[in-house]
């Protein structure tokens, strides 16, 4: 099914991003939601659908004073919000709700009102991964990469280049956490976390949030902001255990979600003006470019190192600076979506000239799940 009937009419991040020790997690959701409602000229009584992750949609609806006819609590990690966009578009088309709010808030750094996410020892991860000494994503999400490097002859220097290029984009974004230029040597000389991954190859840990408001395309033109249309969407899931990925050089969830969204949108890769690929770690843009079909297997690292995704390059990628430099609260997908919306509205700090189609690709867990959205600023 080709989906052309839903648009984003409200979008905002939290008032502040970074270190916010004086605001709890649910209030970060609310701050972003209030900003998005103001952006769309709406109040809580105008919202009839709520989707969120991290908190439940019940908590968010109650806290904001919303009476929903539709809720979605899909919580599959950082791409949950891409999947919420997909589900919300389907719900609006099906008439289950008219105006849907998607919220994210996470006190990832300050951990104020932030429930712990410990792994139960009886879960499969608890039995078959945790006993071997991982400590969260930096020591798990990175496990497949040596196999990728050996298979395609990719070097640590090339992976470090991903971080260098994204820092260039971050330098153009006043709200980015890290904006100073860095070199490949800076990346390789930064503190070792989980060899071959150094500190600067790992995402930030910050506080913040974001929210989106969706409605049908026929209503979208009566809102204050330029509508951003949803052309196509995709989602998938593979495994909660990174050790059980089918292929350590490629994500099955990416290979399902991405092409599904492209097919639904009816676009080709050459049509894409702007691209976001969730970068919790430096290898994610490499896997994403290949699994979404932008490049043959094994070619993405050199493509990035040759500055094709850098400012002035032919495929602007992660133009906010990404999870590596802009911000990363834990579930970064919402910030990638916000940057796609800014680019389609034409208001991004590092605006891509004449961009008409933006693809936003998210990962959840450690290659556990995926969601992809194709946006356009032109009415379909």
């Amino acid at each position, binding site marked *: 099914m080709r989906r052309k009937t839903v648009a984003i009419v409200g979008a905002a991040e939290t008032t502040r991003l970074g270190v916010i020790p004086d605001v709890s997690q649910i209030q970060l959701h609310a701050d972003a939601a209030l900003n998005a409602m103001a952006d769309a000229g709406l109040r809580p009584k105008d919202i009839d659908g709520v989707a969120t992750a991290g908190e439940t949609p019940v908590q968010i609806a109650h806290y904001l004073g919303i009476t929903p006819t539709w809720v979605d609590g899909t919580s599959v990690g950082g791409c949950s919000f891409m999947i919420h966009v997909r589900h919300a578009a389907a719900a609006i088309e099906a008439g289950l709700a008219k105006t849907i709010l998607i919220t994210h808030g996470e006190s990832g750094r300050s951990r104020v009102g932030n429930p712990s996410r410990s792994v139960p*020892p009886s879960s499969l991860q608890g039995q078959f991964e945790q006993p*071997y*000494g*991982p400590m969260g994503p930096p020591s798990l999400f990175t496990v497949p990469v040596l196999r990728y490097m050996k298979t395609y002859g990719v070097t640590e220097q090339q992976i470090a280049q991903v971080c260098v290029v994204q820092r260039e984009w971050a330098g153009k974004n006043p709200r980015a956490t890290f904006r100073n230029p860095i070199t490949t040597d800076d990346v390789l000389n930064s503190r070792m976390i989980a060899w071959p991954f150094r500190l600067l190859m790992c995402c930030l840990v910050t506080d913040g949030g974001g929210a989106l408001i969706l409605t049908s395309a026929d209503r979208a033109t009566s809102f204050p902001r330029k509508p951003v249309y949803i052309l196509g969407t995709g989602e998938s899931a593979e495994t909660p255990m990174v*050790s059980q990925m089918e292929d350590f050089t490629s994500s099955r969830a990416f290979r399902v979600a991405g092409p599904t969204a492209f097919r639904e949108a009816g676009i080709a890769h050459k049509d894409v003006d702007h691209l976001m690929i969730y970068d919790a770690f430096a290898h994610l843009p490499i896997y994403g470019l290949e699994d979404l079909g932008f490049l043959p297997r094994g070619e993405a690292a050199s493509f990035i190192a040759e500055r094709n995704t850098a400012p002035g390059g032919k495929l602007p990628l992660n133009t906010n600076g990404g999870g590596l430099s802009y911000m990363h609260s834990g579930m970064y997908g919402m910030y990638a979506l916000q940057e796609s919306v800014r680019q389609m509205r034409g208001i991004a700090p590092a605006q891509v000239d004449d961009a008409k189609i933006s693809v936003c690709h998210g990962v959840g867990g450690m290659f556990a799940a995926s969601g992809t959205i194709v946006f356009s600023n032109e009415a379909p």
Partner: protein
Amino acid sequence: MPEPARALPQPTPETQHFWDGTREGELRLQRCDACGKVYFPPRPFCPTCASRKVSVFKASGKATLWSYVIHHRPVPGFTPPYAIAVVQLAEGPRMMTNIVECPQTPEALVLDMPLEVGFEKQNDNITLPLFRPAKG
């Protein structure tokens, strides 16, 4: 004061045979009686064809080093740097483990090197399967 211990598994009815096996010095996998697929982690049905007719068998314990990181941060029960590895078992499945009796360096830990299973007792209930460079 005792050293803080590493995280230990809490077996479930569906995985108990695996942990009984490691306690007895065996690496036990499951094979589908219908389609022949060998799979891991444990569950009482085949994830390929959904048959409930599956058998537990003793694996060879032979493996190769598939991928890893060398972790440099402190974790209870570990002295950094140490490798968190995934091994390719001879029977087909992969599993996460640690590599023992081997320097925890990129030079010593070479992808595709042959490994063999060993067993490290944690307490009366739990023994972990760890892998070391193959001797033969």
